[in-house]
């Protein structure tokens, strides 16, 4: 299987787990967001361009597969991938601390961009109660799953890099 195929299969597998397995542990309908974690990890490992592309592709997959507001995740994940990718040169790939904790910042950023888009689309909500009900549980889930997702992404990236070098 080509590098692209492996990466696509990995992304699809994470999405299937996110949508079909992890709702088992959902709290008030909120479960871990692996697509966002994958975007953050890949951007830290591969830089701005590939991080942006991964954000766009994983976001588009989410939009197409779930039937949510079309384009909304492609937009926000693309921005997340782009911003995280800018820090790729300043982080050692073997260092897991920053990518794992950056996922919290990325989740918060993603949440507020989505909230802004919702307001622009005409939906009204109470920001304080919404943060309590949705953002806080999401952050806990993201922190719990950031390390395993980053570890898997790192291992896959290492294999793909070795193959590319050879």
């Amino acid at each position, binding site marked *: 299987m080509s590098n692209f195929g492996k990466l696509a299969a990995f992304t699809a597998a994470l999405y299937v787990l996110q949508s079909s397995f992890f709702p088992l542990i959902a709290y*008030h*309908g909120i479960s871990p967001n692996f697509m966002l974690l994958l975007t953050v990890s890949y951007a830290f490992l591969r830089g701005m361009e590939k991080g942006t592309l991964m954000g766009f592709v994983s976001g588009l997959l989410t939009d197409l597969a779930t*039937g949510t*507001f079309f384009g909304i995740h492609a937009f926000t994940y693309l921005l997340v991938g782009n911003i995280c990718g800018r820090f790729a040169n300043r982080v050692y790939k073997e260092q897991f601390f920053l990518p794992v904790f950056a996922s919290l910042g990325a989740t918060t950023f993603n949440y507020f961009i989505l909230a802004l888009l919702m307001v622009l689309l005409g939906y009204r909500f109470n920001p304080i109660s919404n943060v309590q009900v949705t953002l806080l549980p999401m952050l806990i889930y993201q922190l719990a799953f950031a390390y395993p997702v980053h570890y898997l992404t790192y291992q896959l990236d290492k294999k793909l890099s070795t193959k590319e070098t050879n």
Partner: protein
Amino acid sequence: MSNRVRRDKEDGRKGWAMAFVVISLFCLIFFAARGRFQAPVSSQAVSLALSPFQQAVAWVANEIHYATSAVWEVATLYEQNKMLRNEVEQLRGINLQANEALAENERLRAMIGYEHSVRQFDMVAARVIGRESDTWSRMIVIDRGTASGVQEDMPVVTPQGLVGRVIEAGPNSSKVQLILDPRSSVGTIVQRAESRVTGIVQGDMDNPTMPQMVNIPKNADVVEGDVIVTSGFGGIFPKGIIVGLVSSLKNDDGGLLKIGVLESAVDFQKLEDVLVITASREAPPEPIKPPPQTPGTETDPAAQQKAEGNGQ
């Protein structure tokens, strides 16, 4: 020097490309949200490719869920029934398998019972194979599509009440918008005979598990505990399906209307199996007839004709 110039040019081009993509996506979101842009082919292709894997993973997840819930039940019984500890230990292995089969059996029996009790509907049973983890919209994916007769805008229910409607049907899977989604709106009515107040049930972003009944006049006869059912207005949802109970009432921001916070009839956290209403044989509304007249009154057409004849 020339390398630096070339690199600057490339960076500039990439920056423009990025800005173009971001602006295009931004516009696309607003066009799509207003229904001016759709991607049905690519969306169905993605669903078609993912649904077999989602079905398999959802099956594994359900099995694990049954097993863990069975273990939990056994552990609780063990605490409560110390005298039966030995027997529980012996039966634990058998109980794990039995509970799993029993839970599935009960669920299916309830569904068959509901299907028999509502003969005016043709229904297709479906299993939930995917859920959205997003915090802004509420969607599920079910394992039935156009091949099973499922079409867009078909209502989705459980024996407990209304779940939502199909918004996109692929060949072997469909996407269902739950009544908790902020984009969803369901025409409803209070079931109590003295009230019969109508309103619209929408998802609430502040409280994703409890939808709201909006557009209730401030002096309307709606009280806590009222059962809310579908009104049948709008043509998508048949009349009389339970949506939920009024949990509390609050004033609208404008001050002229009330909002009823509903406790949904369906437990969306434990949604595993649903029924899609593929056809409804509800009787069409009767044609409007003039009210019965009391003979000899002014509005009685026969009496009027007689009076006119006498006048001439």
